[in-house]
């Protein structure tokens, strides 16, 4: 390629990318580096200074509550991830593949997405009158006669956090899966039928493998959001469930920046492992 035009094209690409890249480096990468750095700072009661120390790290691993929060985060993440997948896949299958009319499929998808235009916090809060002792579920169950006394474990427990998170995040699983299923060429399924395959085989050999990128994208969405959560657990568990996010919020609230940073780094590492793991299954860039 002649030098002049190669350079012209390169400059062009550079100009288009520079603002975005600079923004991300300054306001995303640098802050994360900062968290790592500050996690080694020395914390005094009301201030921190940049003398490097491992104290905060030691404190984290010495505290049962903190390490417990790590395990709770991982446990809740796995449960919610599984639930969103198990509950979301059949819905996605219907919306993305089985509904023949494009309009119906679009309407159903829009229906699923509409709740997102209500404030996230209010969506969380809406579970309280639903799950509470005098909440809708207990009232209905009592009216039907399935139970005599209200189930108390529904609200302010790990269960309520799980229910709340599943409801809020399941759509992030349904969307990408339905999208991938919608992209499957119907002729491929007809070809498989034509070769004598029944639904079970078509599902496991054709449909599921082809929807896998959607599952992975959905799983990444859900994981990222659940692992960084603190509001849902705060609002629905009555402080009984502490996630890594909750600890960060509390520590920042009491100006314990170093400890907050330690938890932040641990959260970052956890996320890095999870996302990298999922990205090994599909190349995200190619799917878009």
């Amino acid at each position, binding site marked *: *390629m*002649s030098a*002049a*035009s*190669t350079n*012209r094209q390169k400059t062009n690409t550079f100009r288009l990318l520079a603002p975005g890249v600079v923004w991300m480096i300054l306001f995303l990468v640098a802050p994360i580096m900062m968290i790592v750095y500050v996690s080694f700072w020395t914390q005094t009661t009301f201030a921190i200074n940049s003398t490097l120390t491992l104290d905060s790290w030691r404190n984290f691993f010495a505290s049962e509550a903190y390490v417990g929060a790590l395990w709770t985060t991982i446990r809740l993440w796995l449960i919610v991830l599984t639930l969103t997948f198990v509950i979301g896949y059949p819905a996605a299958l219907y919306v993305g593949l089985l509904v023949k009319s494009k309009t119906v499929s679009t309407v159903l998808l829009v229906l699923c997405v509409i709740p997102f235009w209500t404030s996230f916090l209010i969506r969380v809060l809406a579970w309280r009158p639903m799950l509470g002792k005098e909440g809708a579920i207990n009232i209905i169950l009592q009216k039907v006669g399935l139970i005599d006394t209200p189930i108390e474990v529904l609200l302010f427990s790990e269960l309520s956090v799980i229910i709340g998170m599943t409801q809020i995040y399941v759509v992030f699983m349904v969307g990408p899966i339905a999208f991938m299923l919608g992209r499957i060429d119907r002729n491929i399924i007809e070809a498989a039928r034509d070769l004598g395959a029944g639904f079970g085989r078509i599902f496991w050999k054709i449909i599921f493998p082809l929807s896998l990128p959607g599952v992975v994208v959905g799983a990444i969405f859900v994981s990222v959001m659940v692992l960084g959560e603190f509001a849902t657990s705060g609002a629905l568990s009555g402080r009984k469930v502490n996630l890594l996010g909750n600890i960060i919020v509390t520590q920042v609230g009491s100006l314990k920046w170093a400890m907050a940073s330690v938890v932040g780094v641990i959260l970052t590492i956890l996320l890095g492992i999870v996302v990298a793991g999922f990205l090994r299954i599909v190349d995200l860039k190619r799917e878009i």
Partner: protein
Amino acid sequence: MTQSDPIFRLEGVTRRYGNLTALDGIDFVAEDNSYIALLGPSGSGKTSLLRVIAGFETPDKGRIWFQGRDITDLPAHERGIGFVFQNFALFPHLTIFENVAFGLRHGATKVPDAEITDRVRASIDMVGLSGLEDRNPDQISGGQKQRVALARSLVMQPKLVLLDEPLGALDANLRERMQTELRAIRERLDVTFLHVTGSETEALAMGDRVAVLDAGRIIQHGTPDSIYDSPAVSDVAQFLNRFNMFEGSLKDGMFHGAFGAVSVASARPNDTDVYAIRYDRTRIFDADASDLPGPALPVRYLASEYLGSSIIFLFETADHKTVEVDHHLSLGEPRDLTVGQNYVLSWDPAQAIVFGKESAR
């Protein structure tokens, strides 16, 4: 510029994509005011060549001259070369009129509105689409889109228009009509068309000159007749899809092949020894016929394909090679053949074309 001056000239144009060499040092001179068909199989680099001339891509090496000026480093919009895309690439958000007016409205030189209207109307009229000015591109047929694309290029009065498989997206019946029309339109204007196609019939039908491109090189350039009647190398003959080609060996003026040994008057230089006889020059005889005009190739009859104006008979040789015979129905009814039966094919050796390593003579 006089009539015989070249409109454009390529000098050692080379284009690589990674390891793949799409264009391999192409030298080419095109006469002004002519219709040039560039024929090549898919992957031969023909579209790359067009895009390099248009300025959508830049060559790694070599120069491009247009109207006596080196345009190698000029961006596409400063070249003044028209381009007609295979998918037409009409602006979907503009009416037919605005599509055609686009270059006049937004180009570097300001054109007064009245002149734009006149030129656009004249151009639309020339391609026979008057009355459709206010339609949107999605409201017209494929053939009409093709015409709009053409009018849009021609309204800029370019001296060179590049056409990238312009008939590829049209169905067979329309393709034939557009062939005639494209030629007629070009003849009316003082413009050179460089038309890229993968179809040998299209190239032969349309070009005043035909260039055959293979693996990034131009392997033959001449009139359609000369390409068809005397392919320069065996690859051209192969690509024309009209020759039975036999491998064999050429030694001391004799070609030894599946049909025995034939004496060869002259051979064209080639990497391998190949004997080629056109489908329509190959004739069918009974297995025991004695009055053959030339070599005897024993074959078994497999099937026939009816092409409307001609019939193709498919035969198989002893070594399972398929051989074709084309009988044009204007020459009368063909003979009846029985599937599975043995026959002998023969031809006038003077009509064969021989390629060989031993080309001297």
